[in-house]
C-alpha cells in the first residue's frame, strides 16, 4: 500500500498541479472577458457589466449559465460530425500549449513531511512547468498551427457562405502571420540557444536584467511577434474572420449555445497563451530581477512571487489586447495580407539576419 502510494504520489502531484494550472488559466480567462468589457466601457466612457455580484464579478458565471441553458441549434445542411468536432479542436488546441510554459521557478525546498506514511520522502523539488520538453517553442507553434483547423472546419461545416468566408480568411491570415511569428521567435531562440522554454527563461536571468530580457536585443522581433500574435488570435485590428459588420460573426455564425462558448473560450485562451509566450520569450518569464537577494532561490515564497510576476506580465499583455481593441480600427483584408507578407515578414527576416550576424560575431 505504501509502496503503491509512493509510486503514485508524484503523478498525483503533477495531476493536481495540472488541474490547478488549468483552473487558474480558465479563471483568468473568464475574468479577462469581464475585464475586457469593463476596460472597453471605461475607454468608451461607459460603466460595463455591474449587475451580477459586486462590480459584476459574477458576470462570467452568469454568462456561462446562459450559454449552457441556451437552445443548441444545428444547421440542417451542415456536416454534423465536423460541425461538432470543430469547437473541440479549437479549444483543445488553444489549451494544449499551456503545458510547456514554465510559470514559475523550480521549487527545491518543498517539505512534504505533513503527509502521512512519508509517501513523499526525499522529494523536494517541484517544477512549476507541466512538461518541460526539448522543443517547447516548436511545440507551441505547431499546436497553434493545428488550431486553425477548428476555425476552418467550423466555417466549412456550417454550410453557410459567411462562415465559409470567415473560415477561409481566418486560415489565410493565420498561415500568413505564422511565418512572421516564427521568424521573430527564431531570433530569441538563437540568443537563448535552445528551443526549450525553461532554458529560454533561464537565459534571460541574471544582471543586468534590462539587457538580458530579450525585449531589448530583440525589440524588432518583439514588435513583430506582438503584431502577428494579434493576428494569430484574430483580435482587433486583425479580426477579419469574425467581423460582425462584414461577415456576421464569420466562422461561428451558425454556432450557438455551448459550442459557441467553446469558440469564445478558445479565443480568450489563445490570447492568454500568446501573452504567456510573449512573456516567456521577451519579458523574462517569471523572473523578477533582484528577487534572489530577498529570498532564497528555490524557496516557496520566491516561487510564489515569481508566479505572481509571471501572471502580472501576462495580464499586462492582456490589457494591451483590450486597450488596442478599444482604440484601433479594423484592417481591410487585402491590407492585412499585404501588411503581413510585404512588411511584417520581411521585417522579421531582416531582424533574423541581423541577429545571425550579431550572434556570429559575438561568438567568434
Amino acid at each position: 500500500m505504501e509502496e503503491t502510494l509512493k509510486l503514485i504520489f508524484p503523478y498525483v502531484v503533477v495531476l493536481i498541479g495540472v488541474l490547478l494550472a488549468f483552473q487558474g488559466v480558465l479563471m483568468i480567462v473568464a475574468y479577462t472577458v469581464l475585464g475586457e468589457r469593463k476596460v472597453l466601457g471605461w475607454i468608451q466612457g461607459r460603466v460595463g457589466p455591474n449587475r451580477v455580484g459586486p462590480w459584476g464579478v459574477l458576470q462570467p458565471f452568469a454568462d456561462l449559465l446562459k450559454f449552457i441553458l441556451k437552445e443548441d441549434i444545428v444547421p440542417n445542411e451542415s456536416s454534423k460530425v465536423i460541425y461538432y468536432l470543430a469547437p473541440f479542436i479549437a479549444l483543445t488546441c488553444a489549451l494544449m500549449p499551456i503545458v510547456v510554459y514554465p510559470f514559475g521557478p523550480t521549487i527545491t525546498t518543498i517539505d512534504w513531511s505533513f503527509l502521512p506514511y512519508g509517501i513523499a520522502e526525499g522529494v523536494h523539488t517541484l517544477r512549476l512547468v507541466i512538461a518541460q520538453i526539448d522543443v517547447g517553442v516548436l511545440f507551441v507553434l505547431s499546436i497553434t498551427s493545428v488550431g486553425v483547423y477548428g476555425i476552418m472546419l467550423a466555417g466549412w461545416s456550417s454550410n453557410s457562405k459567411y462562415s465559409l468566408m470567415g473560415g477561409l480568411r481566418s486560415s489565410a491570415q493565420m498561415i500568413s502571420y505564422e511565418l512572421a511569428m516564427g521568424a521573430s521567435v527564431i531570433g530569441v531562440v538563437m540568443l537563448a540557444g535552445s528551443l526549450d522554454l525553461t532554458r529560454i527563461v533561464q537565459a534571460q536571468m541574471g544582471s543586468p536584467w534590462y539587457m538580458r530580457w530579450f525585449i531589448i536585443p530583440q525589440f524588432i522581433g518583439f514588435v513583430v511577434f506582438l503584431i502577428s500574435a494579434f493576428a494569430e488570435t484574430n483580435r482587433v485590428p486583425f479580426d477579419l474572420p469574425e467581423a460582425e459588420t462584414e461577415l456576421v460573426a464569420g466562422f461561428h455564425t451558425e454556432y450557438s449555445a455551448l459550442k459557441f462558448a467553446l469558440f469564445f473560450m478558445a479565443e480568450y485562451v489563445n490570447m492568454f497563451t500568446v501573452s504567456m509566450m510573449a512573456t516567456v520569450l521577451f519579458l523574462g518569464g517569471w523572473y523578477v530581477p533582484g528577487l534572489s537577494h530577498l529570498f532564497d532561490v528555490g524557496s516557496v515564497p520566491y516561487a510564489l512571487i515569481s508566479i505572481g510576476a509571471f501572471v502580472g506580465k501576462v495580464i499586462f499583455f492582456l490589457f494591451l489586447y483590450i486597450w488596442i481593441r478599444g482604440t484601433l480600427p479594423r484592417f481591410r483584408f487585402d491590407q492585412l495580407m499585404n501588411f503581413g507578407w510585404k512588411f511584417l515578414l520581411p521585417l522579421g527576416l531582416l531582424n533574423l539576419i541581423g541577429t545571425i550576424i550579431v550572434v556570429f560575431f559575438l561568438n567568434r
Partner: protein
Amino acid sequence: MVSTALFFLFAGFAIMCAISMVYHKNPLYSAISLVGVFLSLACIYLTLAAPFIAIVQILVYAGAIMVLVVFVIMLLNLDDEPNTSRLKYLYALGGGLGIVLLAQTLFVVYAVSRTPNQAIDPNVTVGNTIDIGRAMYTDYLLPVEIVGVMLLMAIVGSVVLARRLSQPQLELVIDKEEERISEEINS
C-alpha cells in the same frame, strides 16, 4: 508496457485513419483523416525517441501542408467525388498493386524479424534538437542549402501559377473561345 500499448493504439489509429482517408468520397473528410494519420505518426515518432521529428511532423504536415489542402478544398468548394463508373481496370490495377505491396511488406517484416535483432540501447537517443541541429549544419549542410533553393523556387512557382492571366494569355483564351464557337456554328 505503456509504450507498447501506446504504439499499438497509435498504429491502429493511423491505419484506421488511412483507410478512412481512402474510403471517404468527400475530400474534406479525407483530409481530416489524413491529419489524424499525421498526428498519430507524430506520436509514434515519440515512441521512437525522435521528439524533434515528431514536432516538425505536426508543424509541417498537419500545420502547414494539410492546412493548405483544406484551404484549397474550401476555396474550390469541392463536392464528393462523383460515383460514375470508373474504368474497371483501374480497380484491378489498384487491387493488384495493393496485393503486391502488401506481400512486399510481409516480406520485409519477415526478413527483418528473421535477422537477429541487436538490442537497442534505450538511452541512446539521436533525435534531440541538438543532435539534429549539429548534423544539419555539418553533414547535411549541402542538403539544407539545396532545400533552401528548392523552397525559394516553390514560392516562385506557386506565385506564377496563382497569379492572374497576363494580357496575351487572356487573349489566347479568348481566341480559343472564339475558335470553339465558330467551330460549333460551322458544325
